[in-house]
């Protein structure tokens, strides 16, 4: 058995090797890096042209939900797999009792009281955060927002409710069963939109919905639709992950 000191030295050696390589790769990458302000490049011009063509002033969304929409489908699938995998690992096994209450509400355990300042701040932030989440949700094709960010912001609004000590309210807003359905339906909807493109225009995820007028709320065809679907999917997935960790059955009866 190696002593603590040699183990520490070995660790340092591994760190030096790994850190050295990372530093080398970083420097090489920096030397080769294109200048940050290359807005006049051919690629940028082509992307902006495409974004205007698809009535999406936000070029990033134009790329995410049109040009590279298949990549976004993969990302949404990864989130779906993460939440499904966690539910599988933390599922209720025979002999385990599922707690209906969070640990902090269990009888016989003194829950540390949430300070009034935290409660007041969290309560005051719930509505602005929820409004901002809605704003970001419906803005993905016009400016900043849409997709994952919107979903995560919506989850934050609910987390604030939890932080303010309104656990029951949060459960009411986020029932697992409905979240499961919501997550699956929104991800399935993404694929359906993609298949519609395949049938109508001959390409998976082709933009087949009416494009509308540049800059209007309902415009950009499937870009807005896919952005909304990803927002719902991401929000449901993150919320399910949090809920699953909170509800993990902790009581295991000894066999025999």
């Amino acid at each position: 058995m190696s002593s603590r000191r040699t183990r520490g030295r070995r660790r340092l050696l591994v760190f030096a090797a790994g850190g050295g390589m990372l530093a080398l790769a970083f420097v090489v990458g920096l030397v080769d890096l294109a200048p940050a302000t290359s807005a006049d490049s051919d690629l940028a011009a082509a992307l902006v042209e495409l974004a205007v063509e698809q009535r999406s002033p936000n070029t990033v969304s134009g790329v995410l939900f049109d040009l590279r929409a298949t990549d976004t489908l993969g990302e949404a699938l990864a989130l779906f797999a993460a939440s499904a995998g966690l539910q599988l690992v933390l599922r209720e096994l025979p002999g385990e009792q599922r707690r209906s209450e969070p640990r902090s509400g269990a009888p016989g355990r003194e829950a540390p009281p949430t300070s009034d300042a935290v409660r007041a701040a969290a309560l005051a932030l719930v509505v602005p955060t929820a409004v901002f989440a809605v704003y970001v949700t419906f803005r993905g094709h016009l400016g900043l927002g849409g997709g994952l960010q919107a979903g995560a912001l919506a989850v934050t609004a609910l987390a604030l409710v939890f932080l303010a000590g309104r656990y029951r309210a949060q459960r009411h807003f986020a029932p697992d069963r409905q979240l499961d359905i919501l997550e699956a339906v929104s991800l399935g909807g993404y694929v359906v939109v993609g298949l519609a493109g395949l049938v109508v225009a001959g390409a998976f995820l082709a933009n087949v919905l009416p494009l509308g007028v540049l800059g209007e709320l309902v415009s950009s065809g499937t870009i807005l639709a896919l952005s909304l679907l990803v927002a719902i999917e991401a929000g449901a997935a993150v919320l399910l992950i949090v809920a699953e960790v909170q509800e993990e059955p902790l009581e295991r009866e000894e066999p025999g």
Partner: protein
Amino acid sequence: MTVARILAVLLVGVLGTAVVLTRDTVHQALVFGLFGLVLALVFLLYMAPDAALAQVVVSGLVVPLLIFVTLAELRGRAE
């Protein structure tokens, strides 16, 4: 602009080191959230506001939230 960028990148390095050196998990989650916010600032300074927004919500909100919920459960189990 260049000065701000250099400062922000340096701050990311400092806070990243701070995350590693923080031993207490609760404090670490807080420092990690701060680290994520400064990283978002770097994205913003390099004119990638979309990436910055994603960084804020994921690293500043969702990851600390998950860590806190998990820690709360683990502490309940230890008692």
